[in-house]
């Protein structure tokens, strides 16, 4: 069944139609929530609340955008509210996270490769959390969720140019935050000079 048809049926109150929509979009919504919370239970709770919210808001969906875009916009707003309620992310002390991921090189070499990758991933996630919200959101949607520029532009209601420049700044900021951790491998360079 086509998505538009499913949406129409769900709007008319069909639980089966809504279930199909949930099945289709749940992995993406969950993954999006997880990227911001880094906690599976919290991400699951958020995903449930997002679908609940979208179900109640279905009568107000007029099909001006794709259902997915509309749902991701609800998701993003809900996640932002959650993060605001939870309180602003504290600045991550770089020494602490670098130690976690990179310091004991000998031990890391001896340790399993998976553990090392996990530690690096954790480091990057914590650094992403320490970015200002507007950069964090855009970086998460593009580089973690892999969303297209157009889609991000619609979800965040930003012009494509703003998405482009904001994402560029977010990536630069993250790389500079990672710089101390890259030092062991030759260090990061501020590419501001010719």
């Amino acid at each position: 069944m086509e998505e538009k048809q499913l949406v129409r049926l769900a709007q008319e109150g069909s639980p089966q139609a809504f279930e199909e929509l949930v099945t289709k979009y749940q992995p993406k919504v969950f993954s999006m929530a997880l990227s911001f919370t880094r906690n599976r239970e919290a991400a699951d709770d958020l995903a449930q609340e997002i679908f609940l919210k979208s179900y109640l808001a279905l009568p107000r969906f007029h099909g001006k955008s794709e259902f997915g875009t509309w749902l991701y916009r609800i998701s993003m707003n809900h996640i932002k509210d959650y993060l605001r309620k939870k309180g602003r992310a504290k600045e991550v002390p770089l020494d602490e996270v670098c130690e976690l991921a990179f310091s004991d090189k000998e031990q890391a070499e001896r340790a399993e490769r998976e553990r090392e990758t996990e530690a690096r991933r954790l480091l990057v996630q914590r650094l992403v959390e320490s970015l200002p919200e507007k950069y964090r959101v855009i970086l998460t949607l593009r580089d973690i969720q892999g969303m297209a520029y157009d889609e991000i532009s619609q979800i965040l209601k930003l012009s494509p140019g703003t998405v482009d420049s904001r994402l560029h700044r977010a990536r630069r900021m993250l790389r500079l935050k990672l710089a101390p951790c890259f030092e062991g491998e030759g260090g990061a360079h501020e590419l501001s000079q010719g």
Partner: protein
Amino acid sequence: MNCRKAETLLLRSADGRLDERTKGLLARHLEGCPACRKAEREYRTMFGLLKDGRDATPLPRFWERLEPRLREETELVPLLFWERWSLKAIPVFLALVVLLGGFLFFAPQAREMSQSAALLLEDRDPLSETMALYEADRPEARTMMLMFASLDEKTPLRRPTP
């Protein structure tokens, strides 16, 4: 091409948004610039680590847990609607009561109706009724007048004493 421009192109290249000609220009810059080559490696590592967080398996039985909540919320919706509107209705109702009370308190009291007005209200001709009343009163009045007149005649005239 300077390093700042090269960094912009590096990021566009990571998104697959670079044409062949610009790709060639970037490649030439990277060949001669160790700093940008390093930046490219770091970005590649960074993107790889970011993408690692993408594949997340959701917790099981998502729909089974969601469905009762949906049902519960849907049942609550009319109640919530009433609750929301009743909260707004209470002050409106109180305002109406105050207005009505004020109107009744300050409005001029209805005057006592005259007999003619009462008759008019009863759809009777006030003139004929009044005439009938007058006619009914007239013999009595005449008798009274005669009585007083006869009294006057019997009363002895008092002469003023000198």
